[in-house]
Structures are given as C-alpha cells and as structure tokens.
C-alpha cells in the first residue's frame, strides 16, 4: 500500500466535493419537479425560489392527470407502438445483421455500403414525408413503426455482436444439415442474448421518446402517442382537458402543479427501471464505439 501525501488527500477531498456539487446540480431539476408535483395548488403559486420540500401537500394533480383520457390513450398508443415496433424492429435488424455477418456472402460489401451510406446522406424531411404518405401509412400508428423500424446504428452494433460469435459452432450444425434459419434460431440467438438485450433497450428508448414523426403523420388525435400529448400539455400550455372536470377555484390553481404531475407520470416509470438496466445501455455504447 502506497502512502498518500497530504496534497493527494486534499485533492481527493476537493474532488469529492466537486462531484457532489455536480451531482446535486444534475439532480436538482428532477427533485424540484417531483416536489412541485405533490404540492398543493395555492402552495405552489405562493412559493418562490428553490424547492426542497413540497409547498403544501396534495395528490389531486396526479388524480386529474390519471383521469385525463388523452393521457391514458397516449400511454395506450405508446404501448401499442412499443409492442409492435419492437417486434418488427428486432426481426428486421436480426435478419439483416445475421445475413450480413456471413463472411464471404456474395455482394456483402456492396450491400453494406448501400446501407451505411444512408447514415450520412438522406433525402430530407419533406421527401420522407411524401414517401410515407404515398405508401399509405399516414394517419395510422404504423407510420410511427414501419418507416423507422431499422436504425442503422443499431444494425451495426448487432452485426458486430454476431460477428464475434465463433464460426466453428455453426459449422458443426451445418454439417448436421441445419439450414441458415435454424442456425440463426438455435445457435446465434442464444449466444447473442446480451447484445440483443442492448438493442431491444435502444429501440425501446427511441420509440418511447419519439414525437416528431407522430406530429408529421397523425391528424387523428385518438392515435397520439404519449409524447405528443405531453407536448400539448407542456409546450403548448394546454391543460384545459385536465381541469375541465374540476370547475372549482382550487382546480384552477392547480394548473402549474398539473404540468409537474404530468412530467412525473410520464417519467417516473422509466427512471425507476433504468438503474437496473444501466449496465446494458453502457455496454451498447462500448460496442458501438469500437465500430465507430
């Protein structure tokens, strides 16, 4: 054990103080939102400055948010898009990554170039909009699933993962007469579980966060995913749908609290799960980085 000098001890203490401050700064906005969301309407209206404990206490805003049909429908639509989107994205990405991880496949180089080119050049927003419209997907939830179902970056990570699997395993299976689908299903997929978990998470986060395409393609409000509903409430300041039922003076004061509660309803589920998944995400960053 090396003895640490006084200078180093001082450095360590200062370092921990700096990091603690940074951590608190990073955490504060979220804490503020959480505390404000369980405040009472008039408590929050009177409150100024930093908020470490709730100003008054009321869960009424949560009740109103959870009773708002648009929020619930938004959750439902997001869930629909998540389930079908993940199924389609994973199927497509796995098939593509497996096929293009076969060494010596005729035309592989050209096909890869064809795919990677799209990472760096695109037709742009307006032609994309018309493409989706022309395919007949506009104003359906499938417009948020099909046109973005393969993410080239995720495809590259997946392909890198598949390529790392030793060839000898599948060769023996092939000698036993297994075709490529069987090899993929019985040998590659079980071995690639960790990388598949990473990609599922990446797609899920992408789908959960997306709102722009929904804004482009959906006219029917019944189909709005959660993020687009949130945009109306948080960005366009529209809380009317929530306070309509209340009518009394107290509900009117809840306007601000409602926004905070909406943020929490849309965010807490993710933040509760994520520390458990953190290591998978981080792993994906590493694999992706190796490949550039």
């Amino acid at each position: 054990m090396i003895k640490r000098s006084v200078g180093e001890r001082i450095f360590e203490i200062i370092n921990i103080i700096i990091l603690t401050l940074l951590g608190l700064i990073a955490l504060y906005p979220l804490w503020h939102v959480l505390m404000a969301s369980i405040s009472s309407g008039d408590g929050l209206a009177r409150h100024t400055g930093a908020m470490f404990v709730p100003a008054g206490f009321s869960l009424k805003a949560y009740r109103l948010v959870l009773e708002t049909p648009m929020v619930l429908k938004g959750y439902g639509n997001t869930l629909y898009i998540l389930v079908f989107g993940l199924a389609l994205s994973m199927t497509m990405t796995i098939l593509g990554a497996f096929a293009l991880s076969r060494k010596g496949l005729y035309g592989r180089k050209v096909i890869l170039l064809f795919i990677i080119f799209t990472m760096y050049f695109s037709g742009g927003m307006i032609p994309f909009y018309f493409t989706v419209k022309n395919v007949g997907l506009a104003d359906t939830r499938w417009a948020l699933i099909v046109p973005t179902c393969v993410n080239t970056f995720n495809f590259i990570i997946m392909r890198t993962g598949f390529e790392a699997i030793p060839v000898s395993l599948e060769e023996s299976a092939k000698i036993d007469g297994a075709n490529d689908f069987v090899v993929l299903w019985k040998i590659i997929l079980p071995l690639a579980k960790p990388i598949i978990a990473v990609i599922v998470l990446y797609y899920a986060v992408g789908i959960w966060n997306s709102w722009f395409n929904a804004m482009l393609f959906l006219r029917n409000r019944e189909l709005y995913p959660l993020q687009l509903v949130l945009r109306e409430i948080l960005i366009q300041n529209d809380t009317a749908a929530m306070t309509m039922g209340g009518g009394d003076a107290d509900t009117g004061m809840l306007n601000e609290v409602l926004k905070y509660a909406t943020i929490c309803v849309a965010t807490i589920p993710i933040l509760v799960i994520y520390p458990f998944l953190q290591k998978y995400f981080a792993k994906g960053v590493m694999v992706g980085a190796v490949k550039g």
Partner: protein
Amino acid sequence: MKQAISFGQAVPRQKKPRLLRELAKNKYIYIMLVPFLLFYIIFMYGPMYGAMIAFKDFTPKLGILGSPWVGIKHFEAFFGSIYFWRLLRNTISISLQTLVFGFPAPIILALLLNEVRQAWFKKTVQTISYMPHFISLVVVCGIIKIFTGSEGIINDFMVQFGQERRDLLLDPALFQPIYVISDIWQKIGWESIIYLAALSSVDQELYEAARIDGAGKWRQLLSVTLPCILPTIVVMLILRVGSMMNIGFEKIILLYNGNTYETADVISSYVYRKGIQEFSYSFSTAVGLFNSVINFFLVLSANTISKKVNDTSLW
C-alpha cells in the same frame, strides 16, 4: 470490415454461373435480406429519389414525376433570401457552442470520476449523471420551459438581483445559452461513459512509474492520463465536427417561438416550417438537400482525417 473489402476482388471471369451458384448456396440468407433491403430501398432511398422535387415545382396533385422541372430556381431563391445567412449563422453558432462547452464537459467529468476511490460514491454520481439521458426530449423541454418561465425558479433568483420577471424563452439573446446549458445537462453523464472506459484501460503501472519519478497529480494527468486517452478524444472530436450541421432540431422546434427565430432558427427547423407548415414543398426540399450535401462532405472529410490521425475509420 477488412474482410469485406478484400472480398469481391477475386471475382472470376465467368460471372453468371458464380452468381447463380452463390444464390443457390446462400438462398436462405438472401431470403432474410429481402425485407431488410426493401426497408432501405423504400424508406431511405425512396426519399432520396423524391428529393428530385427540389429541382421541380412540386404539387401533390401532379406527383413527383408529373411536376414540371424548374432547374435550380429554389436553390437560387434560398441563397438569395435574407434567411440564408441567418440560418447558416445560427446553425454554426449553436454547433460551435455545444462543441466548445459540451465537448470537454464529459471528459472533465470522467477524469474527476476516475480519481474517486470509493466505488459506491462513483456509482451514485454516475447513475445521477446518466439520468437526464433517460428523460424524453419533450419532457426535458417542458422542464426548461417551466424553469425559464416568468414564474419559474430562474426568475425567482433574478428578482433578488433587481431584475424584472419575464419569460426568458422570449428573449433572442438567451435562446442559445439556454439551449447549450441544457444540452450539457442532458448529455454530460452519458457521453462520459466512453471516456471512463478509455481511462479504465490505462496501464496502472504507468502511474506507479510516474509516482516514483516524483510526479504529482497534475503531472500524472498531463503526462500519463491525457496521452493515454487522447486517441479516444480525437475520434470523438472528429465525429462531433463531422455532424456539425446536424443540430438536434427537434429540441429547437420545441423551444423556439416567433420572438426568437432571429437566434434560434436553424436550417432543419426552417425546412420543417416552410415545408410542413407553409406547404412550400419544393423550396424546403431544396434547403434540406443543401444541408444534407454539406453534412455529407463534412462527415467524409472528418472520416478521412480520422483515418490519417488514428487509423480509425467509420467504414
């Protein structure tokens, strides 16, 4: 990808039989590729084909092929418009600021975290710093809007210094600072992961040697740590520069308003407004195409430099 490159050079003279043989041998593989490639053809190359409306006067009624050609009229209109320089200036200004302030931030965080001996403390700080990455953009912008609003917490403090309450997002001078600061908050933790990984692979014996030579913490940082993670830093920097024209316009669309177009409007947000909201399809496609082309050459040159400096390339 090295193998892929060497492959294909050994194409024999009789192409056809070889091709057929290959197709037969790998028929299942090619079947798997069909839906995958269809996706790219329709949704990636389809819009590239559609981008030809930049050179036409497109109306949905006449369709892409039926609309009349007009040459580079829309490009000329864009380059000549008063918005051209404003959009270019804002795009470059916002990218440069996120580069200058946002790029070193995760490196510094990683360096500080790397010095922490208490594993639990390190883990806690990391978990907290990743958190904003998992909050959706709409919610992040919602929080920004509430905090910068006239009744928001930032105004609560400014009042103490004799300022009047006002909505900060309505002030053109504040849009870019708000964008850049919140960007650091969103990304600092997540982007530090890659540097932490690089730091963890630094040979500990180098530090021992430096200590024996009497190097203090600062000396160790300059002479051991930084040189060891420099390749990672260079690659990340080059990638960053390569995507400079590619600003996260979704965040801009969520935060800007008529008052702040002067400093907030970038090329892609302009494309959205012109094309989707004002139906100038051909014109906005031309603007978008201009952006795509510049982007492409930036990435291409970034990659070439990266290859020279580091032997690391994107393809």
